[in-house]
């Protein structure tokens, strides 16, 4: 009897190993019956609250937001880290972040990573969200609107949608990315209730992820084909999209949850409070993750 799990993710290239684990039958082999739901980050917590999702992949600061706003969730393992595959694209006449002052910038809704990214980068440059005109657009339409229209001066987006801009250098370029500002980390987590009731399945989810990474190492071509197909890319296109992504293996995971995340969470919570996405910091940030399963 396979354990049923519904996982909410987005089209972000960093989440592709989950698709791979499902499509290549890794989950199945580990006794899991996984359903993957593509659902925008801004809605993902609602779906968890409704009970339709037990697990999700999302950026690390979102777990703070969700828990602070009443949706109990626990991270299990880190998946990847932005290495420049997400960031702010801007018109060619905008050369540095400071130039964004007073400009129209597209980012996804509050509580999502692009929104947070923008706030973070602006803060590092001595500005705040109030200094730009913020337009709510999900990463995909943001990239579309940026390359095709004139309404936007800048947009926050990520791979694979960054490729749209990459293909049209005349429309703009990346002015700030997650390599310069190391603050985009993705992790995978589930509700505490699910973890408590299905420890075996949780272990299997974790192991499946690591097995998917192994498969990418072993059979790149096949893995890229499967992962690309999910976002309607060829293996070659996908290879380009994932070039700057570094998936976290077991070792990287151990390292991340031992110090790195604590530091990041502290800074992130401050900022989230500042921009009004949470009303109070979670009491104990260490309950946001559970490192039992990566051991």
């Amino acid at each position, binding site marked *: 009897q396979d354990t049923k799990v519904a996982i909410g993710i987005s089209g972000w290239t960093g989440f592709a190993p989950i698709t791979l684990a499902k499509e290549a039958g890794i989950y199945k082999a580990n006794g899991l019956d996984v359903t993957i*739901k593509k659902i925008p980050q801004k*809605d993902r917590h*609602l779906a968890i*609250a*409704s009970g*339709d999702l037990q697990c999700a992949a999302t950026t690390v600061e979102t777990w703070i937001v969700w828990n602070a706003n009443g949706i109990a969730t626990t991270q299990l393992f880190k998946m990847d880290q932005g290495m420049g595959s997400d960031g702010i694209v801007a018109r060619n006449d905008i050369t540095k972040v400071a130039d964004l002052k007073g400009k129209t910038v597209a980012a996804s809704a509050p509580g999502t990573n692009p929104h947070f990214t923008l706030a973070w980068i602006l803060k590092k440059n001595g500005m705040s969200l109030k200094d730009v005109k913020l337009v709510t657009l999900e990463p995909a339409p943001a990239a579309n609107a940026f390359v095709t229209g004139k309404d936007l001066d800048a947009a926050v987006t990520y791979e694979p949608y960054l490729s749209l801009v990459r293909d049209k250098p005349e429309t703009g370029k990346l002015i700030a990315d997650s390599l310069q500002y190391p603050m985009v980390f993705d992790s995978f987590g589930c509700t505490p209730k699910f973890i408590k009731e299905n420890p075996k399945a949780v272990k299997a989810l974790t192991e499946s992820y690591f097995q998917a990474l192994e498969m990418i190492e072993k059979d790149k071509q096949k893995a890229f084909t499967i992962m690309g197909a999910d*976002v*309607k890319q060829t293996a070659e296109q996908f290879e380009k999209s994932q070039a700057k992504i570094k998936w976290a293996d077991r070792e990287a995971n151990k390292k991340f949850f031992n110090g790195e995340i604590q530091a990041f969470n502290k800074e992130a919570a401050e900022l989230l409070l500042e921009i009004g996405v949470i009303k109070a910091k979670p009491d104990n940030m260490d309950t946001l993750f559970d490192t039992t399963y990566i051991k």
Partner: protein
Amino acid sequence: MKLLVPVKRESRIALGVAFFIFFVALWSFLSLSGAVPKHFLATPWQTLVSGWNLFATQGFTHDVGMTIWRVVGGFVLAAVIAVPLGIAMGVYKPIEAFFEPFVSFARYLPASAFVPLLILWVGIGEAQKLTVIFIGCFFQLTLMIAMIVSGTRRDLVEAAYTLGCKDSGVIRRVVLPGAAPEIAEALRQVLGLGWTYIIVAELIGASSGIGHMITDSQALMATDHIIAGIVVIGLVGLLSDVAFKKVNQHLFSWSLLR
């Protein structure tokens, strides 16, 4: 041209076809001449081919099927409650007085704005999609049916009383058959409304459906797929409407006599 004078059947058809030809010609010109960049607007031919491919190779039939089932499902749910409630409201004015102000107000609540709440309340499965359609259809339908039933011809009701009917007989044998054609017509119109909500319903958490296909294609700027999707919804909506109309005409042929 003379005022209000009908045109012959043949010229009517010819003129109607002419507009479609004109429209496609304009579209072709815009997309082929380069007046509009290619990725802004697919050519008609490309759209047609993509549309065909969607069905032939990408399992679009399943998407269309899911969309139809959601619209019809939500609509049937709405109808199952709205029809008896509307009839009760139309017939018994105290019931109408009780529900009418609330329903009148609720009709203005935009179904699409409920999406975030619905995700919380009923999740992201089929229930959420059905509920969006339900909200979009239910209040409107209830009001329309109550109005129709209120408009029951008083003289026919009185005639039934003088022929020996009691209240229940009047409802069963006069109010219902008299209102049936208009209720069917209201159902048809509201089903048309349902189609306009499905895209919103399928925006979130769907893994199939025409709306899902359109959202997917958006990321890739596949305007051919988007246009094909829109046209397919239009066609399905039109077909369901025509079919509904035919069924009504067949069921209530007496109401068409003049």
